[in-house]
């Protein structure tokens, strides 16, 4: 109603936001562009358990210090727990303890893992591995028999170890292996048997647990593998296939058969591991500065949130940029789309695949869905059951596509599972109604319009610099809000109206 009011509001919002951005950029020296630097990964382990009104002790393994990676900025976060770290034969662990705890407990370990500049060249001595004393004669005989068999089938130490692993893992193990394993078939037990057998051949073996460093994984799992000592160094083997392996992206966490977490005085313990490639090591300095200067400001910023939440916000905060683009395309350009925000949701869905594949899948599923929807039209179904039927069909189509793409070896197809099914269903429904009532041209026009907007939104939302900027300077969204409010009172022509009213402007009087 009152234009001045709106202008004032927009001006205030813009001023406040720019003020904060300038302050952060100049005083706190937040870099304005994402700076790519050497890789670093943020790892967060969240341990939760149910305390039992009693003293509780939690021990958690920490990354070892002898691999090609090192952990820095280690933080142990807990409420009221005593913390101390221990070294045990190269393994490191943190022990949290408390006199009395009740209810759900949360403990956090955070660290930044970086590759160490030069591979540590440690010439190890013959390892001091305590081989289990075997007292049982029958067991000794069985081991000897296996060893004799393996020796006949191997050329060197590598194939020797490999053969032992294969034999122990075999689906139909021979009698000797069977007697060694007994009823125990868990991975840890198999590794135990392998080490017993290999000890008989004077090859020390150990179980190693590690973590794969990935771009982003909210529920990372620890991987266990085997290392055998021969020719003066440790060699890694896959404990399942027996293949030698050399994974440069595995960081060694601990050696030995035990689990990651041990809780006494609690139950239902759980450990959740998040790994994220740190986009911005250059931010570290700026963050530290902010924390020192303005602790409150840091506490109340997105960067103070747990990594797991941060990753979600990195996506969410870019969404307003896509929505703003949608407003411009609809109200200033005049592109026709299905639904108001559907294109932005489709753009979010493209993140799960990638642009080209997403487009292909989208057209494929919507096309096939439309064909089936037209068939359903003949059955004269009521609205809600019909929508449900289309949803079920869409789900089945996606499943089929996943299965086919997997068969063809296109791994990407699998991530389609997260493609939003409801959005696809509604698109199909609206498109078919528009198709019937306004004709194919109109339906295809709107469909194409939606896709064009979705692609634009996807491209903008995925620009590294855009994502970085709104994440580090979330207050910039206020400027976007101001611009959106102003567009809310934009009364000029839409570009599409130049075409629509061309009969009127052509007269040229």
């Amino acid at each position, binding site marked *: 109603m009152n234009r001045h009011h709106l202008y004032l509001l927009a001006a205030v919002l813009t001023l406040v936001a720019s003020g904060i951005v300038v302050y952060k950029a100049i005083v706190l020296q937040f870099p304005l562009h994402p700076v790519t630097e050497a890789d670093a990964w943020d790892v967060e382990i969240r341990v939760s358990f149910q305390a039992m009104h009693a003293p509780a002790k939690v021990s958690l393994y920490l990354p070892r210090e002898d691999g090609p990676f090192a952990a820095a900025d280690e933080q142990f976060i807990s409420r009221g727990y005593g913390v101390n770290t221990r070294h045990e034969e190269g393994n490191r662990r943190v022990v949290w303890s408390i006199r009395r705890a009740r209810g759900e407990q949360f403990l956090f370990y955070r660290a930044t893992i970086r590759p160490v500049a030069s591979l540590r060249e440690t010439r190890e001595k013959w390892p001091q591995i305590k081989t289990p004393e075997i007292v049982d004669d029958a067991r000794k005989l069985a081991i000897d028999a296996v060893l004799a068999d393996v020796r006949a089938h191997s050329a060197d130490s590598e194939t020797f170890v490999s053969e032992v692993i294969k034999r122990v893992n075999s689906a139909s193990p021979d009698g000797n292996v069977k007697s060694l394993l007994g009823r125990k078939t868990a991975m840890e037990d198999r590794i135990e048997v392998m080490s017993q057998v290999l000890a008989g051949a004077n090859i020390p073996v150990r179980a190693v647990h590690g973590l794969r460093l990935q771009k982003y994984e909210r529920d990372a799992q620890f991987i266990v593998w085997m290392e055998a000592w021969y020719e003066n160094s440790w060699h890694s083997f896959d404990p399942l296939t027996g293949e030698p392996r050399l994974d440069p992206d595995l960081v060694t966490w601990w050696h030995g058969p035990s689990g990651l977490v041990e809780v006494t005085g609690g139950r239902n313990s759980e450990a959740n591991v998040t790994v994220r490639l740190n986009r911005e090591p250059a931010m570290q300095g700026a963050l530290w500065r902010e924390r020192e200067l303005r602790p409150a400001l840091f506490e109340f910023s997105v960067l103070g949130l747990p990594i797991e939440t941060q990753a979600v916000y990195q996506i969410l905060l870019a969404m307003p940029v896509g929505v703003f683009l949608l407003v411009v395309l609809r109200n200033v350009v005049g592109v026709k789309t299905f639904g108001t925000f559907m294109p932005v949701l489709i753009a979010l869905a493209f993140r799960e695949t990638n642009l080209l594949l997403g487009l292909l899948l989208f057209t494929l599923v919507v096309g096939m869905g439309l064909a089936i929807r037209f068939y359903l039209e003949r059955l004269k179904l009521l*609205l*809600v059951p019909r929508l449900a039927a289309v949803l079920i069909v869409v789900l089945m189509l996606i499943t089929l596509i996943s299965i086919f793409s997997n068969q063809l070896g296109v791994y990407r197809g699998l991530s389609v599972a997260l493609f939003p099914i409801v959005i696809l269903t509604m698109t199909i429904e609206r498109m078919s109604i528009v198709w019937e009532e306004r004709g194919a041209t109109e339906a295809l026009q709107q469909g194409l319009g939606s896709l064009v907007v979705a692609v634009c939104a996807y491209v903008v939302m995925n620009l590294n610099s855009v994502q970085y900027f709104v994440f580090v300077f979330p207050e910039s969204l206020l400027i976007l809000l101001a611009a959106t409010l102003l567009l809310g009172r934009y009364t000029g*022509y839409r570009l599409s109206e*130049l075409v629509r009213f*061309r009969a*009127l*402007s052509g007269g040229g009087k």
Partner: protein
Amino acid sequence: MIGEGIRRLARKGVLGINRRNADYILTHNQRSLYPRVDDKWLTKQLAMQAGMPVPELYAVVEIQHQVRELTEHVRDYSDFVLKPACGAGGDGIVVISGRMRTRYRKANGILIDQSEMQHHVSNILSGMYSLGGHPDRALVEYRVKFNPVFERISYLGVPDVRIIVYRGIPVMSMVRLPTRLSDGKANLHKGAIGAGIDIATGHTLTAVWHNEIITEHPDTGNEVSGIQVPFWEEQLRMAAQCHELTGLGYLGVDLVLDKDKGPLMLEINARPGLNIQIANRAGLVPRLDLVEQHYKALPDIDQRTAFAREHFGSE
């Protein structure tokens, strides 16, 4: 090039959709009044209270259970119209023009059986045609027998007159003529023809079909311009009255001409389309501005229609 196009439209005084929404609909039409026009049943009741002629209502189907009684309701009528109470853009309207034993003949000649008709009504109830997909009601009403004036220039359906009313003053008008393409419907986006009407005299001007200017009806080949619309003064008065009826500042009134009953008010639209400007080859903005200057001095309907006839005729 784009700048030049925009300047030309502005010179013509063409009203764009953004400005229509921001300056006229959002500013002059209170949202609380929308149900009066979005629900055609309510509009009909209001009009009847005010003594405005409307097509007679035969029955209202409100719940799924009543769908089966539909045949009972329409037993005595050989022709009728089925429409959603809260439909938009003419979607979901079925015109039954006759019977063939147990079947019904649609206006386009296609026969449908009882179950197909019931399915259609169920769809209406489930909200398939209503704004926002809310559950809706189905109205069964009198099928207008249109005035022979338009017979030569319309195909199958009922032509209707649309009048834009701003602050109670009719500002622009057109007649919408169904074509074969529009399936007998009078909606421009479905392929109906829009012919501008000179507010001063009630004569049709040039016509548009799909954003193109035409002079003959594509199906009948007859001249569409220069036809005198009957009961023009009465229609202007009815349109002006809709301002009081609804309380809306900017609205579009749809009227039909019945052979026996004269002009009937079909429905009122709180967001009337902008294609009427193409049909009239004139922009709305200068007319709306003129109304803005004078409306305070024009309190009653006679003065308002006189003002419209004086100022909004084609030169």
